[in-house]
């Protein structure tokens, strides 16, 4: 358990510092259109790279995961809420698992 608390402190400490330092100490408005555009595109690029191809291995079965991913893409295209997309794709993946 003592060992665990060292791990916990290291993990939480690094994660907090990454979030806190720029957010707390950056007080200037960035003028550069390039840097502002860069920061604007970062979340889309990060989430895209985190989702593909990993979503296809998220259920332990490529077929059920593909069905769930297709469901998520269609619902997201029609602007459904985060929770609707998350729950429906899980349900589709589950049902597909029962069928195959």
């Amino acid at each position, binding site marked *: 358990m003592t060992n665990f608390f060292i791990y916990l402190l290291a993990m939480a400490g690094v994660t907090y510092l990454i979030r806190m330092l720029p957010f707390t100490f950056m007080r200037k408005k960035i003028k550069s259109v390039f840097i502002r555009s860069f920061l604007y595109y970062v*979340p889309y690029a990060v989430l895209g790279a985190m989702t593909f191809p990993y979503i296809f291995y998220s259920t332990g079965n490529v077929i059920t995961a593909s069905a769930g991913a297709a469901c998520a*893409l269609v619902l997201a295209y029609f602007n459904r809420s985060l929770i609707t997309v998350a729950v429906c794709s*899980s349900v589709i993946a589950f049902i597909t698992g029962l069928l195959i």
Partner: protein
Amino acid sequence: MKENTYLRGLKNGLAIGLGYLSVSFGFGITAVGKGLSGLEAILISMTNLTSAGQLAGITVIAACGSVLELMLTQLIINLRYCLMGLALTQKLDNSFSTLHRLFISFGITDEIFAVASAEKGSLNRRFMYGLITLPYIGWALGTTLGAFAGQILPESVCSALGIAIYSMFIAIIIPDTKTEKGVLLAVILSSALSCIFYFVPWFSWLPQGFAIIICAVLVSAVLAYFFPKNFEEEEA
């Protein structure tokens, strides 16, 4: 301004909170499956509030890896929060003192960032506190339920829930791809690059955290150069 911005933040955070409930449920199941105690899993969720980082973290802990390896993993996987925090500072109104920045920065996650950046005009600190509240509760509660109830659920349900976090990412990025060509290209390019890193054997030495950072920096820089965003209209 009479509207209660805290309540509006709560409302905007509800969907994220519910999403986190199901995702952290999966985290709780995984953590206990890797040999951590339920309490340890809950403590990690309450102090870290990050899905990908926590998942990588417990993998290192379960393998009895070194503290340095753990810290490096967190640094690389969570480095995007640094960029997100930097981006958010550009939208903060003058209600953010240093103390509030210290508290609110803890709550910067992919989804909270996405909702906060989608907010029109500048950000108020009450809105941010409201936005963070339910996701934090959902994340801690979901982990607790997963850690202690995961064993009761059949394996088929648990594995189907594994897709929830990725579907949520899709729900965040897809709607904006319809209206903005730059966003569409950013998503396509970075997804494609990520797949190349994953499938091309030559890149197999590259840890997932590094691959994501490279995708994000490279793609965002290219897009910022060829499709600079017009910020004038938002500020008018």
